[in-house]
Structure formats: C-alpha cells, structure tokens
C-alpha cells in the first residue's frame, strides 16, 4: 500500500551532494513529493527533508540506497507522532473591500499572517501540517486563489534525540 513518508537526512556539504540525492530518486524511479535543504549547527553538514510516496518495499529501498551514498551520514524516518513536521505556504488570494475582512478573519482562525495587502489581493503566510494547510485552502478557495508557493515539509524529531549522534 502506498503511503507518504517524511525522511530526514544529515549529509556532508560536499560538491554535488544534492544532485546525487535527487539523481538517485530519478534513476530508480522514486517520486519526490517535496525536498528542502538547509544549513545546520555544524557548518560542514546540511540537513535535507524529503517527502516521498511509495509502498513499504520501495521506502525500505529508498532508505538503503540513500544510506549507500557516501555523503549521506544518517537517514531517519520522521514519524508523525514522534516528530514535528511543518510546511510554510504563501497564498495570494483575491480580496476587495467586500471580502477582505472575511479573509482576514479566516486567517486569524488559522493563526496565519497577512504579509502583503494590495487593492485586489492579499498574501497570507501560513505554517502548519499538511492537514491544516489543506483546511485553510478549502476555506479561502471560494474567494479565488491567484497563486501560491509551498516550501515542502520540514521536520525535527521530538524529545532529546539528535540526528548527528
């Protein structure tokens, strides 16, 4: 059965590491739903969060194949109940004098921020789980979504566990 899984990787900041990882997914026919990269507390390391869809056999293979890459130090699966997984989204919604306040109210309910206001539109910044964001989309959809951008999932294990240990 196919399911969505969030993987967290610690990698060495070497030349071409991102293309090695994305290339691995491409050539083995695995689908990346999202991928985010960023620096870490150690300047020599980067942290990558990848969301993938596949059955158990494929997910096991993905983890094993990622671990085979020399630049990859650790691969863990971020399980929803043991980790914080969030996404950042900017949404540009149609808004005029009659609808603006309603949209702001919805945004407030979702603890989203209005980050840009124009005569005929609003840009809203929202952070949350996939479900929260889907819910928000559903609420503002009737007003007209002009465009949006999603950062992709990023996450961290709960508790005292540290990936580099």
């Amino acid at each position: 059965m196919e399911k969505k899984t969030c993987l967290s990787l610690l990698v060495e900041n070497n030349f071409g590491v991102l293309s090695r990882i994305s290339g691995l997914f491409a050539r083995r026919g695995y689908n990346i739903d999202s991928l985010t990269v960023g620096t870490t507390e150690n300047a020599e390391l980067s942290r990558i969060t990848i969301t993938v869809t596949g059955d158990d056999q494929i997910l096991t293979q993905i983890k094993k194949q990622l671990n085979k890459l020399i630049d990859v130090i650790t691969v863990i699966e971020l399980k929803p109940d043991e980790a914080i997984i969030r996404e950042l989204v900017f949404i540009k919604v149609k808004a005029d004098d009659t609808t603006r306040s309603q949209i702001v109210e919805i945004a407030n309910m979702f603890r989203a921020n209005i980050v840009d206001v124009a005569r005929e539109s609003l840009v809203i910044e929202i952070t949350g789980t996939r479900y929260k964001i889907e819910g928000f989309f559903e609420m503002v959809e009737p007003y007209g979504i002009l465009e949006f951008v999603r950062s992709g999932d990023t996450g961290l294990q709960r508790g005292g566990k540290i990936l580099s240990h």
Partner: protein
Amino acid sequence: MIPLLASKLILKCLERENVEYVFGYPGGALLPLYEAFRTSPIKHILVRNEQTAPHYASGYARESGRVGVCLATSGPGATNLVTGIATAYLDSIPIVAITGQVDRALIGTDAFQEADITGATAPFTKHSYLVQNAADIPRIIREAFHIASTGRPGPVLIDIPRDVQLENVKTGLTYDKIDIMGYKPNLNGHSGQIKRAIKKIKEAKKPVIYAGGGIVLGNAQAELLAFAEKNNTPVITSLMGIGAFPEDHPLYCGIVGSHGYKYSNVVMNGADLIINIGARMSNRATSQLTKFEKDTDFVHIDIDPAEIGKNMETNIPIVGDAKTVLSELVQKDTVGDHAVWLAEIETIRSENPLVYDADPPCSDLINPKILFKDMSKMTSDNATVVGDVGLNQIWSALYYRIIKNRRYYTSGGLGTMGYSIPAACGAVFATLDKPKEIFIVCGDGSFQMSMGELGVIAEHQLNVNIILITNTKLGMVRQLQFDNYGKGHYSGTDINFDIDFMKLAEAYGIKSFKVDKNADFNKVLPEAIKHQGPTLIQCQVHPDFIRI
C-alpha cells in the same frame, strides 16, 4: 616544507597506494600529470582508446585483488570511460578512474573539451570527487582507494582540473586517517540473524547454497568449500559466482539463470532453503526460478544491505562480509540430513544432461561446447579465462571447467562487448612477475569492438592467448532473433565482411592459427600456450550453431 607541484603529489599519493600501473590516454587537461609521469616509478600503459582503459583496470583488479587505475583527459576522454566505469560498477570491481578537467575558472562555460564527468557517471560510481583545492589531493586519493576497495567494491572517479595540477602545495603525504562520516561498511553479520539462519540451515531438508560474485570478490572460496562440505549442501553459482566453488566437486550444481544449466534451475526451484551468499538475484539469474514453494526460505548474506530484499523477498537478512560470516557459520552446529535431497539432485542431473551434440552442417565445423570442454583438459590449474559477451561468453562459462585455482572473468552485469581483450591484458600486467596462462575468449563481434588493443599486446609482447570464435554473425542477438521472431528473421546481425584475421594478427606480429575442426584446435592449443608471446587461434563455428 618544500612546496610540491600538485601533479607530482598526485603520483606520490598513487605510489603510496602501491599503484604499479596506470592505464591511460593523455590530453590537454592532463599535460601537467603526464609531465610528472616522466620521473615517476609508476608505469603508464598507453591504451588505444579510453573506452578500454577501465576494462584494463578491471582485469588488473580482479587478477591482483588490488585497485585498478585508469586515466583519461577531460571531455571526450572522460566520456569514453563511461561504459567501462558502468561495467565495473555492475560487477562491483574496485577501480579508481582519474580524469583531467578544464581549469576551475572555465568549468560551466562549455570550454573546449569540457564535460561534466562527475555528473555523467554519478549513477554508476560508488563515489566521485571534483578536486577544487590541491591541498585536498592526499585526502581524496586516500579516501578514493579506501572506498573503491572496501565494503562492496566499486569504481570511484576523481576529476582534477588542469590548473589544480599546476598548484604548488605545502601539504605532505601525512593524510593517513580515514574518517568518512557516512561510510562505515559492516563486516560482521548480526548475531541474532545468524542464529536464525543456523536454525533454518539445520532444519532444512533441501537446502541450496547460491554463490555469487561476492564470494570471489571477498576471497571466501575456502570458507565456502568448508561450509558446503560440512553441511553436505549443494552449491549453485551465478555467472559472477563462477570460480566461487570448484566445478569438479561432487556438491557443485552448476550455474543458474536464463543462460545457465537446465539442471541447476531445476535443483534451485526444488529447494526448501536458499542460502544466497553475495549474489544480486538479477533478472537474468532468476528468470527460470518460477516454481519456488511458498514456504521456501531465503537467507541472504550480502555486504550491501540494499541488495537484500531488493529483487527477492528474504526472511533472514545477514549484512556482512562473505568470508567473515561464513567463517562464523562454519563453526556452528548446522548439520542436517540431506541424503534424500542429494539423491534427488543426482536424478535431476541425470535427467537433464549437458548436450554437446550438434547436427550437420553445424557439426562440420568447430563445436564450441566441445572446444571449451577440451580446453579444460589442456590448460593449467591456475589459468585465467576472460570471456567477452555473447555466445562465446556462455559457451566458455558453461563448458570450460573452473577447477582448483582457475579464474573466470566476464562483464556479467552490464554485458559490455569488447571487455575481454583489455581486461585480460590488465590481468597479464598484474601477473608479469609470476606469468601464468591467460586466455581471451571472444567472438568476431566483440573482438572488433576492442581490436585496437592488439597494439598494446604487441607493444608489450603480452603473453596472452586469444581464442577467437568466428561465425561472421553477432551470434547471441541472432539467437534471440531466432527465438523471438523465428528462423530467417535476422536483422543487423550479419558481419558481412569476412575479415582475414590471420593477416590482421600478422600485422601486429601476433602468432596466429586458424582451425575449423576440434581435433585441429586440440593440436594447436598446446603450441599456442607454449609460445612465448601473444597468440591468436581463430576457430570457425557454423553460423547456425546458436545453441548454448
């Protein structure tokens, strides 16, 4: 510390890795390195096309058990290495490929002879480096050799820009400590899994050991023999596993797969436990394995965790080195009663005998199956045979017997035509201090893919014997066309010009023979073996002889 030119430092680092030979081809981006070669004890062997250089390194590595090194310039030189690197990757052969690259400032500008070779080879290198600072050279070369030769071996590429080679560096050769955070191969099997395996092995009524290339690469032949004999367990090999187990041993049960022995596939299908040691379970090996019982158990021992469960469900995975794990297993109480099973195997064997016979017109010329059977009796106990790709490969793999210390190399995974000549030459270079019989087996198709390398054979008077099977056809593809589309449905598989190979050999000063009868082959082979220097025996096989 006196500054050292980076090009010299590169060769010093290679020296420290005990590199004797580098198989390469020069070019603009490697001028500094080639200048340094003039005063280095490392011998540079000029190949005749970069495409063969990784195969030389591969043959050298397989014969010596050490890392083979090949070298090519930037751009077309580097891209010519691609197939050979992929060949080594699929067969897990430890090689280091060094490529020249354009100056750092020119990278990304589509400069003359620029190619993104680390990008191009990423799918089939174990790892690769683009050297950006000359000071990193000692670390990178140390790491490259370590990565290539440990764990599951494989090719590593080092791309070195021309201007990096010209830098003066103050760093010494002091880089000894290897600490790669993401690379710590696991050699010892998990004790819990080993316990489970022991229980299964003891309980099994019809066990089979399936031995792959991992036994050969891991030098675990003696441990496998001890384990199989102790447990009275039959051994079947993959194509890459040829040489893992002596073929004259009563427990030897042949080669599995679409091009294996029929009886081996029947035996494997009937097993209740398969102990896979270092085999990938590739589609070619498993295509005939369709009748597994639902309760067949699979123990898979492999140094690469990603191989376990990739192609076949495994209930007992053991990640570890074949030699280490087998040494542990052989000390455990695993002996079960397999008398009934071994008797059943004897029946299967006698019901599915090897077929040597051929009918006219095929029987009018050389019968290649009998040729390799006969060759088994006339060659030394430590001979190396390098099979190319095609019918010649399957005939030599199936009918030449690998016994005692004999070795058989071929491009098993990628199936790269043109492998045999350069790989055998690499093996000769690895044994110059202890010369031995080394044979090239190729067809007229594969021969023509690498025949430029006759220049290297002649130049260095390499003591190698070429068994050239000619039928003026691309035999294996022709066989597939026959099987898939019917008699006469041949397309693109005629080598229409009947080359005078005798004259070709003569042009290179290679002693040559042409035979069209098995009896004549048997007469000339001892003469060819005795001859000091290279020889070629052209063996005429009928084009319709397409059975394996």
